[in-house]
Protein backbone atom coordinates (compact mmCIF):
# COMPACT_ATOMS: atom_id res chain seq x y z
CA UNK A 1 0.00 0.00 0.00
CA UNK A 2 2.76 2.43 0.85
CA UNK A 3 5.21 0.82 -1.55
CA UNK A 4 6.83 3.06 -4.13
CA UNK A 5 4.73 3.40 -7.30
CA UNK A 6 6.31 1.10 -9.91
CA UNK A 7 7.62 2.37 -13.24
CA UNK A 8 4.95 0.42 -15.12
CA UNK A 9 2.21 2.22 -13.20
CA UNK A 10 3.87 5.62 -13.63
CA UNK A 11 4.24 4.96 -17.36
CA UNK A 12 0.52 4.16 -17.61
CA UNK A 13 -0.29 7.40 -15.81
CA UNK A 14 1.95 9.37 -18.19
CA UNK A 15 0.28 7.76 -21.21
CA UNK A 16 -3.07 8.77 -19.77
CA UNK A 17 -1.82 12.33 -19.22
CA UNK A 18 -0.90 12.55 -22.93
CA UNK A 19 -4.46 12.05 -24.10
CA UNK A 20 -6.72 13.22 -21.25
CA UNK A 21 -6.33 16.95 -21.82
CA UNK A 22 -8.07 18.82 -24.59
CA UNK A 23 -4.82 19.79 -26.35
CA UNK A 24 -3.34 16.31 -25.95
CA UNK A 25 -6.44 14.65 -27.35
CA UNK A 26 -6.66 16.85 -30.44
CA UNK A 27 -2.94 16.52 -31.09
CA UNK A 28 -3.36 12.73 -31.32
CA UNK A 29 -6.38 13.19 -33.57
CA UNK A 30 -4.29 15.51 -35.76
CA UNK A 31 -1.48 12.94 -36.04
CA UNK A 32 -3.98 10.27 -37.03
CA UNK A 33 -5.82 12.54 -39.48
CA UNK A 34 -2.63 13.72 -41.17
CA UNK A 35 -1.35 10.14 -41.43
CA UNK A 36 -4.55 9.15 -43.22
CA UNK A 37 -4.22 12.21 -45.46
CA UNK A 38 -0.57 11.46 -46.29
CA UNK A 39 -1.45 7.90 -47.24
CA UNK A 40 -4.47 8.90 -49.35
CA UNK A 41 -2.56 11.59 -51.24
CA UNK A 42 0.32 9.22 -51.93
CA UNK A 43 -1.88 6.54 -53.51
CA UNK A 44 -4.20 8.95 -55.34
CA UNK A 45 -1.74 11.51 -56.65
CA UNK A 46 1.55 9.65 -56.53
CA UNK A 47 3.43 8.31 -59.50
CA UNK A 48 2.55 4.70 -60.29
CA UNK A 49 6.04 3.56 -59.26
CA UNK A 50 5.59 5.27 -55.87
CA UNK A 51 2.53 3.22 -54.89
CA UNK A 52 4.67 0.63 -53.15
CA UNK A 53 4.17 -0.27 -49.50
CA UNK A 54 7.67 0.97 -48.74
CA UNK A 55 7.04 4.42 -50.21
CA UNK A 56 3.53 4.84 -48.81
CA UNK A 57 4.86 3.91 -45.38
CA UNK A 58 7.65 6.47 -45.62
CA UNK A 59 5.07 9.20 -46.24
CA UNK A 60 2.71 7.82 -43.60
CA UNK A 61 5.41 8.23 -40.95
CA UNK A 62 6.05 11.91 -41.62
CA UNK A 63 3.11 13.37 -39.61
CA UNK A 64 4.15 11.31 -36.58
CA UNK A 65 7.78 12.33 -37.06
CA UNK A 66 6.84 16.00 -37.12
CA UNK A 67 4.06 16.13 -34.50
CA UNK A 68 5.11 13.53 -31.91
CA UNK A 69 8.04 15.70 -30.76
CA UNK A 70 5.44 18.36 -29.95
CA UNK A 71 3.52 15.77 -27.93
CA UNK A 72 6.80 14.97 -26.16
CA UNK A 73 7.55 18.63 -25.50
CA UNK A 74 4.09 19.26 -24.06
CA UNK A 75 4.23 16.11 -21.94
CA UNK A 76 7.09 17.67 -19.99
CA UNK A 77 6.72 21.43 -20.40
CA UNK A 78 3.04 21.44 -19.43
CA UNK A 79 4.08 20.27 -15.95
CA UNK A 80 5.60 23.73 -15.63
CA UNK A 81 3.32 25.89 -17.79
CA UNK A 82 0.18 24.34 -16.26
CA UNK A 83 2.04 24.04 -12.95
CA UNK A 84 1.00 20.43 -12.44
CA UNK A 85 4.62 19.76 -11.36
CA UNK A 86 3.39 20.81 -7.91
CA UNK A 87 1.17 17.72 -7.89
CA UNK A 88 3.30 15.29 -9.91
CA UNK A 89 6.46 15.79 -7.86
CA UNK A 90 4.50 15.76 -4.60
CA UNK A 91 3.40 12.22 -5.51
CA UNK A 92 6.74 11.19 -7.04
CA UNK A 93 9.46 13.18 -5.27
CA UNK A 94 12.21 11.21 -7.04
CA UNK A 95 12.01 13.58 -10.00
CA UNK A 96 14.16 11.59 -12.49
CA UNK A 97 11.81 8.60 -12.03
CA UNK A 98 8.95 10.66 -13.35
CA UNK A 99 11.02 11.65 -16.40
CA UNK A 100 11.97 8.01 -17.03
CA UNK A 101 8.22 7.20 -16.93
CA UNK A 102 7.60 9.98 -19.46
CA UNK A 103 10.34 8.62 -21.75
CA UNK A 104 8.82 5.13 -21.53
CA UNK A 105 5.32 6.48 -22.17
CA UNK A 106 6.62 8.48 -25.14
CA UNK A 107 8.28 5.35 -26.54
CA UNK A 108 5.04 3.39 -26.21
CA UNK A 109 3.08 6.12 -27.98
CA UNK A 110 5.72 6.31 -30.75
CA UNK A 111 5.47 2.53 -31.26
CA UNK A 112 1.68 2.76 -31.41
CA UNK A 113 1.96 5.56 -33.99
CA UNK A 114 4.37 3.44 -36.06
CA UNK A 115 1.99 0.48 -35.91
CA UNK A 116 -0.91 2.67 -37.02
CA UNK A 117 1.16 4.04 -39.91
CA UNK A 118 2.11 0.48 -40.92
CA UNK A 119 -1.53 -0.61 -40.89
CA UNK A 120 -2.75 2.42 -42.83
CA UNK A 121 0.04 2.13 -45.38
CA UNK A 122 -0.70 -1.58 -45.88
CA UNK A 123 -4.40 -0.89 -46.30
CA UNK A 124 -3.79 1.90 -48.80
CA UNK A 125 -1.27 -0.16 -50.76
CA UNK A 126 -3.73 -3.05 -50.99
CA UNK A 127 -6.64 -0.82 -52.03
CA UNK A 128 -4.56 1.04 -54.62
CA UNK A 129 -3.66 -2.37 -56.11
CA UNK A 130 -0.75 -0.92 -58.05
CA UNK A 131 1.48 -2.94 -60.32
CA UNK A 132 4.84 -1.45 -59.43
CA UNK A 133 7.67 -3.98 -59.00
CA UNK A 134 8.48 -5.05 -55.43
CA UNK A 135 5.03 -3.81 -54.38
CA UNK A 136 5.18 -5.29 -50.87
CA UNK A 137 8.90 -5.40 -50.23
CA UNK A 138 10.07 -3.78 -47.00
CA UNK A 139 13.62 -4.60 -45.89
CA UNK A 140 13.75 -5.44 -42.18
CA UNK A 141 16.50 -2.85 -41.76
CA UNK A 142 14.24 -0.15 -43.08
CA UNK A 143 11.45 -1.14 -40.69
CA UNK A 144 13.97 -0.86 -37.86
CA UNK A 145 15.00 2.59 -39.10
CA UNK A 146 11.34 3.67 -39.22
CA UNK A 147 10.95 2.72 -35.58
CA UNK A 148 14.18 4.54 -34.68
CA UNK A 149 12.92 7.61 -36.57
CA UNK A 150 9.62 7.89 -34.71
CA UNK A 151 10.87 6.89 -31.26
CA UNK A 152 13.87 9.24 -31.35
CA UNK A 153 11.67 12.10 -32.58
CA UNK A 154 9.57 11.62 -29.46
CA UNK A 155 12.60 11.40 -27.17
CA UNK A 156 14.12 14.55 -28.69
CA UNK A 157 10.84 16.37 -28.02
CA UNK A 158 10.82 15.24 -24.39
CA UNK A 159 14.42 16.44 -24.09
CA UNK A 160 13.56 19.89 -25.44
CA UNK A 161 10.57 20.17 -23.12
CA UNK A 162 12.70 19.15 -20.16
CA UNK A 163 15.60 21.46 -20.98
CA UNK A 164 13.43 24.56 -21.47
CA UNK A 165 10.54 23.74 -19.09
CA UNK A 166 8.33 25.97 -21.21
CA UNK A 167 6.12 24.98 -24.15
CA UNK A 168 6.42 27.82 -26.66
CA UNK A 169 10.21 28.33 -26.57
CA UNK A 170 10.76 24.56 -26.72
CA UNK A 171 8.52 24.14 -29.78
CA UNK A 172 10.00 27.16 -31.56
CA UNK A 173 13.57 26.09 -30.86
CA UNK A 174 12.86 22.50 -31.89
CA UNK A 175 11.71 23.60 -35.34
CA UNK A 176 14.05 26.59 -35.76
CA UNK A 177 17.35 24.95 -34.82
CA UNK A 178 17.51 22.59 -37.84
CA UNK A 179 16.73 25.51 -40.14
CA UNK A 180 19.45 27.60 -38.53
CA UNK A 181 21.89 24.69 -38.80
CA UNK A 182 21.01 24.19 -42.45
CA UNK A 183 21.72 27.87 -43.06
CA UNK A 184 25.10 27.45 -41.36
CA UNK A 185 25.69 24.44 -43.58
CA UNK A 186 25.62 26.67 -46.64
CA UNK A 187 28.83 28.22 -45.36
CA UNK A 188 31.45 26.06 -47.00
CA UNK A 189 33.78 25.78 -44.00
CA UNK A 190 30.94 24.53 -41.77
CA UNK A 191 29.36 22.13 -44.22
CA UNK A 192 31.13 19.07 -42.81
CA UNK A 193 30.18 19.83 -39.22
CA UNK A 194 26.54 20.43 -40.09
CA UNK A 195 26.28 17.13 -41.96
CA UNK A 196 27.06 15.38 -38.70
CA UNK A 197 25.02 17.53 -36.35
CA UNK A 198 21.85 18.62 -38.15
CA UNK A 199 19.17 16.12 -37.33
CA UNK A 200 17.04 17.07 -40.34
CA UNK A 201 19.91 16.31 -42.69
CA UNK A 202 21.54 13.39 -40.92
CA UNK A 203 18.26 11.60 -40.24
CA UNK A 204 16.66 12.26 -43.59
CA UNK A 205 17.59 8.81 -45.04
CA UNK A 206 16.10 6.98 -42.04
CA UNK A 207 12.68 6.36 -43.59
CA UNK A 208 13.71 6.16 -47.24
CA UNK A 209 16.80 3.99 -47.72
CA UNK A 210 18.61 1.26 -45.91
CA UNK A 211 21.43 3.36 -44.52
CA UNK A 212 25.11 2.81 -45.21
CA UNK A 213 27.71 2.66 -42.45
CA UNK A 214 28.68 6.25 -43.12
CA UNK A 215 25.06 7.42 -42.98
CA UNK A 216 24.55 5.50 -39.74
CA UNK A 217 27.61 7.16 -38.25
CA UNK A 218 26.27 10.61 -39.14
CA UNK A 219 22.78 9.71 -37.93
CA UNK A 220 24.00 8.34 -34.60
CA UNK A 221 26.18 11.39 -33.93
CA UNK A 222 23.26 13.71 -34.69
CA UNK A 223 20.88 11.62 -32.56
CA UNK A 224 23.30 11.47 -29.63
CA UNK A 225 23.61 15.23 -29.82
CA UNK A 226 19.90 15.99 -30.22
CA UNK A 227 18.76 13.56 -27.55
CA UNK A 228 21.73 13.74 -25.21
CA UNK A 229 22.32 17.47 -24.88
CA UNK A 230 18.73 18.56 -24.05
CA UNK A 231 18.14 15.56 -21.78
CA UNK A 232 21.38 16.22 -19.88
CA UNK A 233 20.64 19.92 -19.47
CA UNK A 234 17.06 19.10 -18.50
CA UNK A 235 17.99 16.46 -15.93
CA UNK A 236 20.57 18.80 -14.45
CA UNK A 237 18.02 21.60 -14.11
CA UNK A 238 15.43 19.19 -12.75
CA UNK A 239 17.61 17.78 -9.98
CA UNK A 240 19.53 20.91 -9.03
CA UNK A 241 16.81 23.52 -9.08
CA UNK A 242 13.73 24.08 -6.97
CA UNK A 243 10.41 23.21 -8.57
CA UNK A 244 7.33 25.40 -8.57
Amino acid at each position, binding site marked *: *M*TARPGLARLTKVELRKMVD*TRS*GFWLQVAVLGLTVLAVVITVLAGHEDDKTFRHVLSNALQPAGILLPVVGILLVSSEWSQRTAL*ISFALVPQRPRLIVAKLLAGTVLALVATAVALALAALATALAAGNAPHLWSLPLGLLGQDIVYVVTAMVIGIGFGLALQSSAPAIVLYFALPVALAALGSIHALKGVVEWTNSAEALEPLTTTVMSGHEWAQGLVALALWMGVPLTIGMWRLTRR*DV*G
Partner: protein
Amino acid sequence: MIEAEKLTKRFGGRAVVDDVTFRCEPGTVTGFLGPNGAGKTTTMRMICGFATPDAGRAGVLGGSYRALPNPGRRVGVLLDASAQHGGRRGREALAISAQTMGVEEKRVDDLLGLVGLDRAAARKRVRQYSLGMRQRLGIANALIGEPEVLILDEPANGLDPEGMRWMRGLLRDFAERGGTVLLSSHLLHEVDAIADRLVIIGSGKIVAEGSKEELLSDAGTLVRADDGEALGRALAAAGLEAREAEGGGFLVDAEPRAVGVAAQEGGVALVHLAPAGDAGLEQLFFDLTTDNAAEGDR
Protein backbone atom coordinates in the same frame (compact mmCIF):
# COMPACT_ATOMS: atom_id res chain seq x y z
CA MET B 1 3.87 15.26 12.54
CA ILE B 2 5.61 18.14 10.76
CA GLU B 3 8.90 19.63 11.87
CA ALA B 4 10.87 22.63 10.71
CA GLU B 5 14.22 23.14 12.36
CA LYS B 6 16.26 26.30 11.81
CA LEU B 7 14.97 26.31 8.26
CA THR B 8 16.61 28.97 6.08
CA LYS B 9 16.24 29.86 2.41
CA ARG B 10 17.95 32.70 0.56
CA PHE B 11 17.00 34.15 -2.81
CA GLY B 12 19.65 36.45 -4.24
CA GLY B 13 21.35 36.98 -0.91
CA ARG B 14 18.13 37.89 0.92
CA ALA B 15 16.84 35.40 3.47
CA VAL B 16 13.17 34.86 2.61
CA VAL B 17 12.95 32.18 5.29
CA ASP B 18 15.21 32.88 8.22
CA ASP B 19 15.90 30.34 10.96
CA VAL B 20 12.33 29.07 11.11
CA THR B 21 11.58 26.43 13.74
CA PHE B 22 8.17 24.98 14.58
CA ARG B 23 6.38 21.70 15.11
CA CYS B 24 2.90 20.47 14.28
CA GLU B 25 1.65 17.61 16.46
CA PRO B 26 -0.93 14.97 15.56
CA GLY B 27 -4.44 15.98 16.54
CA THR B 28 -3.90 19.69 15.91
CA VAL B 29 -4.70 22.18 13.19
CA THR B 30 -1.88 24.70 12.92
CA GLY B 31 -2.48 27.97 11.15
CA PHE B 32 0.59 29.37 9.43
CA LEU B 33 -0.16 33.05 9.32
CA GLY B 34 1.72 35.85 7.68
CA PRO B 35 1.37 38.60 5.11
CA ASN B 36 2.06 37.88 1.44
CA GLY B 37 5.79 37.53 0.90
CA ALA B 38 6.53 36.55 4.50
CA GLY B 39 7.93 33.14 3.50
CA LYS B 40 4.96 30.82 4.09
CA THR B 41 4.93 29.29 0.63
CA THR B 42 8.71 28.84 0.55
CA THR B 43 8.63 27.16 3.97
CA MET B 44 5.88 24.77 2.89
CA ARG B 45 7.69 23.94 -0.35
CA MET B 46 10.83 23.13 1.60
CA ILE B 47 8.81 20.81 3.85
CA CYS B 48 7.48 18.99 0.76
CA GLY B 49 10.85 18.68 -0.94
CA PHE B 50 10.21 21.16 -3.76
CA ALA B 51 12.83 23.61 -2.55
CA THR B 52 16.14 22.78 -0.91
CA PRO B 53 16.88 24.67 2.30
CA ASP B 54 20.15 26.63 2.48
CA ALA B 55 20.34 25.71 6.14
CA GLY B 56 18.33 23.72 8.66
CA ARG B 57 16.01 20.84 7.88
CA ALA B 58 12.36 20.04 7.43
CA GLY B 59 10.70 16.73 8.11
CA VAL B 60 7.35 14.98 7.89
CA LEU B 61 6.45 11.88 9.90
CA GLY B 62 9.96 11.62 11.28
CA GLY B 63 11.89 11.75 8.01
CA SER B 64 12.34 13.91 4.96
CA TYR B 65 9.38 14.17 2.58
CA ARG B 66 11.43 12.99 -0.38
CA ALA B 67 12.35 9.78 1.46
CA LEU B 68 8.69 8.72 1.69
CA PRO B 69 8.18 5.82 -0.75
CA ASN B 70 4.60 6.70 -1.72
CA PRO B 71 4.08 10.15 -0.20
CA GLY B 72 0.49 10.52 -1.39
CA ARG B 73 -0.57 7.76 1.00
CA ARG B 74 0.98 9.48 4.03
CA VAL B 75 0.87 13.22 3.34
CA GLY B 76 -1.83 15.19 1.52
CA VAL B 77 -0.47 18.26 -0.18
CA LEU B 78 -2.15 21.30 -1.72
CA LEU B 79 0.52 23.83 -2.65
CA ASP B 80 -1.45 25.89 -5.15
CA ALA B 81 -5.08 25.39 -6.08
CA SER B 82 -4.58 26.94 -9.51
CA ALA B 83 -1.81 24.45 -10.32
CA GLN B 84 -4.01 22.11 -12.38
CA HIS B 85 -4.06 21.51 -16.12
CA GLY B 86 -6.84 23.74 -17.44
CA GLY B 87 -7.70 21.34 -20.24
CA ARG B 88 -8.28 18.35 -17.95
CA ARG B 89 -11.67 17.49 -16.46
CA GLY B 90 -11.96 17.77 -12.68
CA ARG B 91 -12.67 14.11 -12.11
CA GLU B 92 -9.83 13.07 -14.41
CA ALA B 93 -7.36 15.26 -12.49
CA LEU B 94 -8.21 13.32 -9.32
CA ALA B 95 -8.19 9.99 -11.17
CA ILE B 96 -4.59 10.36 -12.33
CA SER B 97 -3.48 11.19 -8.78
CA ALA B 98 -5.36 8.13 -7.51
CA GLN B 99 -3.75 5.94 -10.16
CA THR B 100 -0.28 7.30 -9.38
CA MET B 101 -0.52 6.42 -5.71
CA GLY B 102 -2.35 3.13 -6.33
CA VAL B 103 -5.75 4.04 -4.95
CA GLU B 104 -8.93 2.56 -6.42
CA GLU B 105 -10.57 4.98 -8.81
CA LYS B 106 -13.96 4.67 -7.15
CA ARG B 107 -12.60 6.65 -4.20
CA VAL B 108 -12.46 9.63 -6.56
CA ASP B 109 -16.27 9.75 -6.70
CA ASP B 110 -16.54 9.55 -2.90
CA LEU B 111 -14.17 12.48 -2.60
CA LEU B 112 -15.96 14.57 -5.20
CA GLY B 113 -19.06 14.13 -3.06
CA LEU B 114 -17.17 14.96 0.13
CA VAL B 115 -15.85 18.27 -1.21
CA GLY B 116 -19.18 19.18 -2.77
CA LEU B 117 -18.31 19.01 -6.47
CA ASP B 118 -21.37 17.53 -8.19
CA ARG B 119 -21.44 15.38 -11.31
CA ALA B 120 -21.71 18.38 -13.63
CA ALA B 121 -18.76 20.12 -11.97
CA ALA B 122 -16.66 16.96 -12.09
CA ARG B 123 -17.19 16.74 -15.86
CA LYS B 124 -16.11 20.32 -16.48
CA ARG B 125 -12.60 21.25 -17.54
CA VAL B 126 -10.63 22.80 -14.69
CA ARG B 127 -10.19 25.98 -16.78
CA GLN B 128 -13.90 26.70 -16.17
CA TYR B 129 -13.60 26.31 -12.40
CA SER B 130 -13.89 29.25 -10.01
CA LEU B 131 -11.11 29.62 -7.45
CA GLY B 132 -13.42 28.19 -4.80
CA MET B 133 -14.05 25.09 -6.93
CA ARG B 134 -10.31 24.70 -7.55
CA GLN B 135 -9.72 24.81 -3.81
CA ARG B 136 -12.31 22.06 -3.31
CA LEU B 137 -10.67 20.00 -6.07
CA GLY B 138 -7.27 20.60 -4.46
CA ILE B 139 -8.53 19.48 -1.05
CA ALA B 140 -10.00 16.34 -2.63
CA ASN B 141 -6.67 15.71 -4.36
CA ALA B 142 -4.86 16.01 -1.02
CA LEU B 143 -7.27 13.58 0.64
CA ILE B 144 -7.25 10.80 -1.99
CA GLY B 145 -4.51 8.75 -0.37
CA GLU B 146 -6.12 8.83 3.09
CA PRO B 147 -3.08 10.64 4.52
CA GLU B 148 -2.11 11.23 8.16
CA VAL B 149 -0.79 14.72 7.47
CA LEU B 150 -2.24 17.60 5.47
CA ILE B 151 -0.15 20.50 4.18
CA LEU B 152 -2.33 23.17 2.59
CA ASP B 153 -1.13 26.50 1.21
CA GLU B 154 -3.87 29.17 1.32
CA PRO B 155 -6.72 26.62 1.10
CA ALA B 156 -9.39 29.08 2.22
CA ASN B 157 -8.51 31.62 -0.46
CA GLY B 158 -11.54 32.00 -2.72
CA LEU B 159 -13.94 30.13 -0.45
CA ASP B 160 -17.20 31.78 0.56
CA PRO B 161 -18.28 31.87 4.24
CA GLU B 162 -20.18 28.61 3.80
CA GLY B 163 -17.06 27.06 2.27
CA MET B 164 -14.96 28.26 5.21
CA ARG B 165 -17.37 26.65 7.64
CA TRP B 166 -17.23 23.45 5.66
CA MET B 167 -13.43 23.44 5.65
CA ARG B 168 -13.32 24.12 9.36
CA GLY B 169 -15.51 21.06 9.97
CA LEU B 170 -13.48 18.92 7.59
CA LEU B 171 -10.07 19.79 9.06
CA ARG B 172 -11.28 19.62 12.66
CA ASP B 173 -12.67 16.16 11.99
CA PHE B 174 -9.39 15.15 10.34
CA ALA B 175 -7.40 16.34 13.38
CA GLU B 176 -9.77 14.64 15.83
CA ARG B 177 -9.04 11.33 14.15
CA GLY B 178 -5.36 11.91 14.92
CA GLY B 179 -4.32 13.77 11.79
CA THR B 180 -1.86 16.64 11.62
CA VAL B 181 -2.81 19.76 9.68
CA LEU B 182 -0.69 22.73 8.62
CA LEU B 183 -2.51 25.39 6.65
CA SER B 184 -1.33 28.82 5.67
CA SER B 185 -3.19 32.06 5.22
CA HIS B 186 -2.51 35.76 4.93
CA LEU B 187 -5.85 36.58 6.55
CA LEU B 188 -6.17 36.46 10.32
CA HIS B 189 -9.90 35.75 10.34
CA GLU B 190 -9.45 32.67 8.12
CA VAL B 191 -6.88 31.08 10.38
CA ASP B 192 -8.77 32.26 13.42
CA ALA B 193 -11.84 30.37 12.23
CA ILE B 194 -10.09 27.12 11.35
CA ALA B 195 -6.89 26.62 13.36
CA ASP B 196 -6.34 25.91 17.04
CA ARG B 197 -2.66 26.76 17.00
CA LEU B 198 -0.94 29.65 15.30
CA VAL B 199 2.53 30.15 13.90
CA ILE B 200 2.94 33.75 12.79
CA ILE B 201 5.68 34.62 10.32
CA GLY B 202 6.86 38.02 9.12
CA SER B 203 9.82 38.81 6.85
CA GLY B 204 10.90 35.19 7.00
CA LYS B 205 11.08 35.01 10.78
CA ILE B 206 8.70 33.44 13.29
CA VAL B 207 7.33 36.30 15.37
CA ALA B 208 4.81 34.44 17.52
CA GLU B 209 3.77 30.86 18.09
CA GLY B 210 1.33 29.09 20.35
CA SER B 211 -2.29 28.29 20.99
CA LYS B 212 -4.74 31.08 20.34
CA GLU B 213 -5.27 31.55 24.10
CA GLU B 214 -1.56 31.92 24.73
CA LEU B 215 -1.17 34.48 21.99
CA LEU B 216 -4.19 36.45 23.14
CA SER B 217 -2.93 36.62 26.73
CA ASP B 218 0.37 37.98 25.45
CA ALA B 219 -1.31 40.62 23.36
CA GLY B 220 -1.21 43.35 26.06
CA THR B 221 -3.82 45.83 27.19
CA LEU B 222 -6.06 48.11 25.17
CA VAL B 223 -6.74 51.43 26.90
CA ARG B 224 -8.73 54.49 25.80
CA ALA B 225 -9.40 57.92 27.26
CA ASP B 226 -11.25 60.99 25.97
CA ASP B 227 -8.01 62.94 26.45
CA GLY B 228 -5.67 60.79 24.40
CA GLU B 229 -2.67 63.12 24.76
CA ALA B 230 -2.85 63.11 28.54
CA LEU B 231 -3.13 59.32 28.52
CA GLY B 232 -0.04 59.10 26.32
CA ARG B 233 1.89 61.30 28.78
CA ALA B 234 0.71 59.26 31.75
CA LEU B 235 1.80 55.99 30.15
CA ALA B 236 5.19 57.44 29.22
CA ALA B 237 5.63 58.78 32.75
CA ALA B 238 4.99 55.29 34.16
CA GLY B 239 7.60 53.89 31.75
CA LEU B 240 5.09 51.66 29.93
CA GLU B 241 5.63 50.80 26.29
CA ALA B 242 2.59 51.92 24.33
CA ARG B 243 1.62 52.19 20.68
CA GLU B 244 -1.35 53.92 19.18
CA ALA B 245 -3.98 51.31 18.44
CA GLU B 246 -6.13 51.25 15.36
CA GLY B 247 -9.46 52.87 16.14
CA GLY B 248 -8.07 55.09 18.90
CA GLY B 249 -6.44 54.54 22.26
CA PHE B 250 -3.23 52.71 23.02
CA LEU B 251 -2.03 49.15 22.99
CA VAL B 252 0.14 48.78 26.07
CA ASP B 253 2.64 46.03 26.69
CA ALA B 254 1.53 45.49 30.31
CA GLU B 255 -1.24 44.06 32.50
CA PRO B 256 -4.47 46.10 32.80
CA ARG B 257 -3.72 46.73 36.50
CA ALA B 258 -0.42 48.52 35.75
CA VAL B 259 -2.08 50.60 33.07
CA GLY B 260 -4.91 51.59 35.45
CA VAL B 261 -2.41 52.69 38.06
CA ALA B 262 -0.48 54.75 35.50
CA ALA B 263 -3.70 56.49 34.43
CA GLN B 264 -4.61 57.27 38.01
CA GLU B 265 -1.19 58.79 38.70
CA GLY B 266 -1.53 60.92 35.57
CA GLY B 267 -5.05 61.96 36.58
CA VAL B 268 -6.60 60.69 33.32
CA ALA B 269 -10.18 59.40 33.20
CA LEU B 270 -10.39 56.16 31.20
CA VAL B 271 -13.29 55.07 29.00
CA HIS B 272 -11.88 51.61 28.20
CA LEU B 273 -9.41 49.32 29.95
CA ALA B 274 -9.21 45.61 29.03
CA PRO B 275 -6.88 42.86 27.79
CA ALA B 276 -6.30 43.53 24.12
CA GLY B 277 -7.34 40.03 22.98
CA ASP B 278 -8.28 39.90 19.32
CA ALA B 279 -7.46 43.57 18.90
CA GLY B 280 -3.89 42.87 20.01
CA LEU B 281 -3.51 39.99 17.60
CA GLU B 282 -4.89 42.13 14.83
CA GLN B 283 -2.49 44.91 15.72
CA LEU B 284 0.47 42.50 15.70
CA PHE B 285 -0.62 41.20 12.34
CA PHE B 286 -1.33 44.67 11.00
CA ASP B 287 2.20 45.78 11.91
CA LEU B 288 3.62 42.81 10.04
CA THR B 289 1.51 43.47 6.99
CA THR B 290 2.50 47.10 6.72
CA ASP B 291 6.18 46.26 7.23
CA ASN B 292 6.05 43.79 4.40
CA ALA B 293 3.60 45.44 2.05
CA ALA B 294 6.38 46.62 -0.26
CA GLU B 295 7.99 43.22 -0.64
CA GLY B 296 7.02 40.72 -3.31
CA ASP B 297 5.34 37.36 -2.91
CA ARG B 298 7.20 34.21 -1.79
